[in-house]
């Protein structure tokens, strides 16, 4: 772990395990989440949801509900109080409430606001909706069938405010996005190959399960000012979409974000805010809509995917070419589907040196609940497929998993994709650390045991636009205003460290305010592992702005050039003499009072910062696993998980490790446990946590090894780059490769006991994904 860049001179607050700024509030129950808010006059919203996957709404009778005492308002898709009833940040395909047609089981059809939740629940039972069922396409294959009904008139869909993926040219059908690229001569590369491995793979729809279900409170002041308190990750994007819906200036919409009870992408972009705000407008009262878990499950999920891949190599294990076709099930509305498809396509080749690559990825509408973001999307979908093929090639060429990767992984500075950022990490160094963590050279324990590793890249950072403000008060204390959402990752703790470092203040003298678009300045989003790297850089610049102001003041007071001065311990120093900040501020304003205001911004350094020119950095998705399989039951135990956090610089190592631990556990869930099951009518069969299993404390691996790699090669503060997503994709794929190493060939995740048992029982020749060896 050698630093290749010169470390900043002090690092008194950075690189240390600063305590979480929110720990005490959270451990005492004082921390406020959206569901803890009580507004004066607040009413309770409930939604009547569609029982059909696809149907015309022929009639809605709300009269009995409206007559129920305590009901304040009843709203249908026909009387939405919005200038534009359609939203969607990528494609404006979604009505606030279903308009004349429902497209998935669980789609909101009628909203009720009442004086109590019980009255709202009762009112929902008094509404009569008549439907005329339509044929439903609840799988990718059904939606792509020539005779499938089209869920949307895609040719006439309007782009959302944040499509961000180029021109939309959609053919009539159920494809909402197609991302494709070709490099090199794919046919020639395959024709010249000694070894070709081919397979089809299926990845399930997965529920993010943040413990806090989506919760939103909306309040109007007149008809032209809206305040929303919401469990959302991207308040400024929500604000923009709400302003668009109601044709208001953006500043007339205020989005306040309390603490979030987890997000993992499930609270990215706009979710319950349009319905809640419309219902509040309709009822003239503040309204809260708090999803239950089964409602959150049909609010957003991870895309299910099916894919076909083939990979070519020489007989001595040089990777030559890869061809990928992947179809992502985005459900009834696009949500973040286009971005997921693009990111998945980017991740599909894997970080290897290819002569030729061809990738086609499609986002497909189906009559199921909408799919959007979930931690490490795209990479989690496709990394395991590609890595299984790399390992299979290694087996056929007489190499082991480490050797083939050492031979083929990209080196720092090599091109990952044309026009994009070159590789900014040492992947071979990283994968060797995985091998060490797995005791790669030692014999495996007895039984059906496998060891696997995986490595991939994820385009991270999203759009690089963030701003921050630091206020230094007359007493020398600093208050940071920044809008990154504290979703549990510890962003506010790390931001406090950055301000403390730049201003040479103790942590206790830095306060962090956040998550209020009416007060704290613009931040594009909280996701894609961007907060430390991009918002953190804006924070650093805002603090540095204050430092330069205080140095300028001190220069006048000392009557010395700024170069002769330094900041240390809350004061400006010249040799042995110091003046504390409060004295300098007093000298500046001529009284005890006033404040210094520092501003920091991050914007694209060149070009537009678009996805095509990015990413901001490549997040390394890497992991190792040792698994044991019970031959009788097919149950898989993870003996050991190994994660490598290639973070450039760990500003708070303990929080980095915490991200790795949490991400790894979600990787275990995605690989072994979790799968949303829709029946042929499009109904979710496992809509409770009884039936949908997320990892419990008993699912922990016996051992977890995490290494932090600090090569100071990130674009963020002090050489940092983001962390949080890589372990999920890396560990999930490592479990798949470890199972293959144990002789269990899995082509469908999760690797449930039944699938593993069947794979063990299958005759070797008939096992899937063996592919055929050419020549």
């Amino acid at each position, binding site marked *: 772990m050698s630093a290749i860049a010169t470390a900043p001179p002090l690092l008194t607050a950075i690189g240390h395990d600063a305590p979480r700024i929110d720990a005490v509030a959270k451990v*005492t*129950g004082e921390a406020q989440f959206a569901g803890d808010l009580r507004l004066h006059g607040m009413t309770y919203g409930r939604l009547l949801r569609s029982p059909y996957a696809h149907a015309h709404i022929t009639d809605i009778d709300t009269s009995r509900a409206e007559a129920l005492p305590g009901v304040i308002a009843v709203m249908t898709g026909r009387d939405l109080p919005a200038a534009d009833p359609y939203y969607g940040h990528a494609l404006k395909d979604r009505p606030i409430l279903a308009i004349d047609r429902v497209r998935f089981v669980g789609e909101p059809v009628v909203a009720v606001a009442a004086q109590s939740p019980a009255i709202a629940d009762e009112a929902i039972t008094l509404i009569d909706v008549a439907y005329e069922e339509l044929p439903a396409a609840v799988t990718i294959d059904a939606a792509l069938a020539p005779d499938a009904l089209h869920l949307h008139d895609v040719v006439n869909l309007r782009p959302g405010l944040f499509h961000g993926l180029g021109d939309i040219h959609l053919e009539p059908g159920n494809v909402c996005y197609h991302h494709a690229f070709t490099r090199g001569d794919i046919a020639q590369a395959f024709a010249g190959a000694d070894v070709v491995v081919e397979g089809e793979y299926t990845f399930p729809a997965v529920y993010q399960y*943040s413990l806090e279900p989506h919760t939103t409170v909306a309040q109007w002041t007149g008809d032209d000012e809206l305040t929303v308190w919401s469990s959302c990750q991207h308040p400024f994007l929500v604000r923009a979409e709400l302003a668009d819906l109601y044709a208001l200036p953006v500043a007339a919409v205020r989005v306040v974000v309390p603490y979030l009870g987890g997000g993992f992408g499930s609270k990215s972009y706009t979710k319950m805010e349009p319905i809640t705000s419309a219902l509040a407008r309709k009822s003239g009262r503040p309204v809260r809509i708090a999803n239950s878990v089964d409602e959150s499950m049909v609010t957003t999920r991870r895309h299910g995917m099916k894919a076909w891949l083939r990979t070519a190599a020489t007989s001595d294990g040089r990777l030559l070419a890869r061809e990928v076709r992947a179809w992502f099930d985005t459900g009834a509305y696009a949500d973040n589907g286009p971005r997921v498809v693009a990111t998945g396509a980017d991740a599909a080749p894997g970080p290897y040196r290819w002569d030729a690559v061809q990738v086609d990825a499609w986002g497909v509408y189906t009559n199921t609940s909408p799919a959007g973001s979930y931690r490490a999307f795209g990479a989690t979908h496709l990394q395991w497929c590609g890595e299984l093929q790399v390992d299979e090639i290694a087996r056929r060429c007489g190499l082991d998993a480490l050797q083939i990767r050492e031979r083929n992984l990209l080196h720092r500075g090599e091109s990952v994709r044309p026009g994009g950022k070159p590789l900014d990490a040492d992947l071979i160094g990283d994968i060797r650390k995985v091998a060490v963590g797995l005791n790669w050279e030692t014999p495996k324990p007895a039984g059906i045991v496998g060891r696997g590793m995986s490595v991939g890249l994820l385009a991270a950072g999203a759009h690089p636009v963030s701003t921050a403000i630091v206020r230094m008060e007359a007493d020398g204390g600093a208050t940071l205003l920044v809008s990154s959402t504290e979703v549990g990752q510890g962003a506010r703790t790390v931001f406090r460290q950055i301000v403390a470092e730049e201003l040479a203040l103790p942590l206790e003298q830095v306060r962090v305010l956040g998550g209020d678009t009416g007060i704290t300045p613009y931040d594009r989003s909280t996701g894609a592992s961007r907060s430390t790297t991009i918002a953190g850089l804006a924070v650093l610049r805002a603090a540095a702005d204050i430092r330069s102001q205080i140095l300028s003041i001190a220069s006048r007071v000392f009557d010395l050039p700024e170069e002769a001065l330094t900041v240390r311990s809350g004061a400006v120093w010249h040799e042995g003499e110091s003046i504390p900040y409060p004295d300098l501020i007093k000298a500046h304003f001529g009284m005890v009072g006033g404040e210094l205001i520092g501003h920091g911004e991050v914007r694209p350094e060149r070009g537009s910062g678009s996805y095509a020119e990015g990413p901001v950095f490549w997040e390394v998705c890497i992991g190792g696993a040792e698994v044991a399989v019970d031959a009788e039951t097919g149950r898989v135990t993870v003996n050991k998980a190994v994660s490598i956090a290639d973070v450039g610089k760990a500003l708070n190592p303990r929080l980095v490790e915490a991200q790795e631990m*949490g991400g790894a556990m979600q990787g275990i869930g995605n690989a072994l446990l979790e799968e949303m099951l829709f029946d042929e009518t499009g109904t979710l069969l496992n809509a409770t946590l009884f039936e949908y299993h997320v990892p419990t404390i008993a699912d922990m691996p016996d051992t977890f090894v995490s290494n932090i790699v600090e090569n100071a090669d990130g674009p963020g503060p002090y050489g940092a780059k983001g962390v949080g997503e890589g372990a999920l994709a890396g560990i999930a794929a490592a479990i798949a490769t470890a199972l293959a190493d144990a002789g269990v060939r899995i082509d469908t995740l999760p690797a449930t006991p039944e699938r593993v048992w069947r794979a063990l029982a299958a005759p070797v020749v008939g096992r899937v994904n063996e592919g055929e060896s050419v020549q």
Partner: protein
Amino acid sequence: MRASADHPAPILLETTVNRRPVSLEIEPRAILLDVMRDNLGLTGAKRSCDTQVCGACTVLLDGSPVSACCTLAYEAGGREIETIEGLAGRHGLHPIQQAFVDRVAIQCGFCTPGFVLATKALLAENPRPTRSEIEDFLGGNLCRCTGYWNILDAVADAAVRLEATNGQSETS
């Protein structure tokens, strides 16, 4: 609203919450979690799964952890309820809370009150639990952020801290 089969007359709930006597009228069907959060303003217990799986709504009833989302408030009559709000004393955090803070067993914090209370019940029953005993006891509490590692550490650390105070905190 007049009493009827759908809307029976309110009943009187007399109970003890965080060592204070509480007396209030509730609907017979009222759920303990709603009474805690909506009537008493104690929002530390969180609503998540509604099915007694996740443990986010955990409170202690006569010292035993229960899922308040699946408990009728009526059942708490004449019993002692302890919530996260009652745990910290005048002299600061309870040793279990301090262990969760020090071991960074907290991320989003939504599950934290439930884990802390379940840990209190565990350590009252088994002051030095093994890893597998901790896993058994805390199987009814879900955390999606931490991967549980730091929670496991915090529980073990809390056991040591409580032992050091000779169980004094049980009455604090």
